[in-house]
């Protein structure tokens, strides 16, 4: 029988750091990466020489981005690897470090996500698998079709979709690392430039650059390095999957999310009612509604009214995308999944400032990516 993460030795997030997400600049990615790494080392109270393994998640930067940046911290000779997993790139880098530390091959590992805005090279274009909509239906179009279907089936309204954007921009306005730090109204969402019916620009995440880092440490590592247990967060599970054949009428993204989150609940004995904060992949407003349903926060079809009830706002039942999410904090690809871990760590420690969800003890991070893939982690405050 295969092991669950909780069957292996305990692992903790001991330090987190960010470089603010922002629109593209001429700054070398090295500056972004090192700012996030140094911030995380300082947060954990350790030095680079304590890090025994590193994984760099980047979707756009190209071959050997990790060591090309990390070498400036001192060439310590540790294993460094690079991963790409579409939008779930950062989540996958984090998962790999978690599994390395849990397995016992390292006591202290570092996951770095960093990206610049460069045109990603999509493997599917060279896969020899043409389809009827190649070039005409990027993700914005696919999710617009899912939005239209949800609106027709369940009566979800344009106002409810817009409210996801309003909420997440309200959160982003309280996050100094968010790309957008300005609140917006429903009317502004409706009146923004149209992209694809029913989405305006404010229903869609921006392009941007940034960096995020999480330091993952074993119990022995915490003791040896003198890291505060009180500020460390236990990683309770790490789940990843990819698509299975989806019957007509069903959303592939909902299916992989439901499957991954169900497994996360099974592995931890937790349920949706136990979660205080969730960072989930809402590159488009409809996704937040689809995924809070898939995660069991509300019944299928109730995501719109549930959002209107303010249950998913900071101070509600469960704060969803308190960071501002992909819509307001941003979605620079490589950093995004690790940025979610950073936000959850800050929320669980009570260090989230003006956007603190009071009493947060348990948080779930979720990303989906082209492929399709899904990665889910649950973090817990121990004290």
């Amino acid at each position, binding site marked *: 029988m295969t092991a669950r993460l909780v069957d292996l030795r305990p692992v903790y997030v001991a330090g987190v750091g960010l470089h603010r997400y922002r629109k593209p600049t001429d700054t070398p990615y090295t500056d972004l990466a090192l700012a996030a790494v140094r911030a995380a080392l300082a947060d954990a109270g350790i030095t680079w020489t304590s890090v025994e393994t590193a994984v760099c998640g980047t979707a756009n930067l190209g071959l050997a981005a990790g060591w090309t940046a990390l070498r400036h911290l001192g060439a310590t000779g540790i294993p460094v690897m690079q991963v790409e997993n579409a939008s779930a790139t950062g989540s996958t880098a984090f998962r790999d470090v978690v599994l390395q530390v849990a397995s016992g091959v390292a006591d202290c590992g570092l996951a770095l996500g960093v990206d610049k805005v460069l045109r990603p090279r999509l493997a599917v274009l060279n896969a*020899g*698998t*043409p*389809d*009827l*909509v190649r*070039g*005409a*239906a*990027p993700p*914005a*179009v*696919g999710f*617009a*079709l*899912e939005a*239209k*279907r949800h609106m*027709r*089936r369940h009566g979800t309204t344009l106002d409810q979709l817009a409210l996801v954007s309003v909420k997440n921009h309200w959160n982003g306005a309280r996050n100094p690392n968010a790309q957008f730090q300005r609140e917006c109204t429903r009317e502004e969402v409706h009146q923004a*430039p*149209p*992209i*694809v*019916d*029913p989405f305006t620009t404010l229903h869609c995440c921006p392009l941007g650059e940034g960096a995020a880092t999480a330091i993952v440490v074993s119990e022995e590592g915490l003791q040896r390095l003198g890291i505060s247990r009180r500020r460390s967060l236990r990683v309770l599970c790490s789940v990843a999957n990819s698509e299975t*054949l989806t019957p*007509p*009428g069903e959303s592939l993204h909902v299916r992989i999310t439901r499957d991954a989150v169900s497994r996360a609940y099974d592995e931890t004995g937790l349920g949706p009612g136990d979660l205080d904060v969730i960072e989930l992949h809402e590159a488009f407003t409809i996704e937040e509604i689809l995924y809070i349903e898939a995660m069991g926060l509300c019944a299928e079809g109730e995501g719109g009214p549930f959002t209107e009830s303010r249950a998913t706002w900071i101070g509600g039942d469960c704060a969803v995308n308190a960071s501002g999410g992909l819509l307001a904090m941003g979605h620079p690809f490589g950093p995004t999944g690790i940025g979610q871990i950073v936000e959850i760590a800050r929320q669980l420690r009570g260090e989230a400032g003006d956007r603190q969800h009071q009493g947060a003890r348990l948080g779930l991070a979720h990303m989906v990516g082209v492929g399709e893939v899904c990665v889910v982690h649950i973090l817990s405050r121990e004290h």
Partner: protein
Amino acid sequence: MSAARARHPSLHTVPAEGKPPELLASRCGECGHLAFPAARFGCPSCGAAPERSAPAAIAGRGTLEAFTIVHRTFSRAFPAPYAVGTILLDAGVEIRAVLAPEDRADLETGGRVESCLVPSGEDEDGNALVDCRFRPVPGGEARDGGGAA
């Protein structure tokens, strides 16, 4: 001038003038899975090798489950505005396709649609190319009431 050729010959037929093209699907000889586009590299359901799949042309007819109007140009091949739809084919396969209605007001969720060919530039030798789109069935074919709920 020779007959037009398909820009993506692996996806659909190019029948005589005015007839709707058929979609080139495949049927797995191991598990029976119907795949469109055809399973050129292996069956996505059971993994059977491609030589175990048989070609299966299916009618480009179905029900428009959802559609959207795209207001931004993502690719030079598809200048905005244009329409994209989710279609449940009568053969039981759900696809996405670019829509080419005579009049966008004819697009109706739950309405019947069929495949059609539109000009799609020329190949390197100057031969005309066509590409597959979907449009509302002319004359408003009676609905069969089928399709996913």
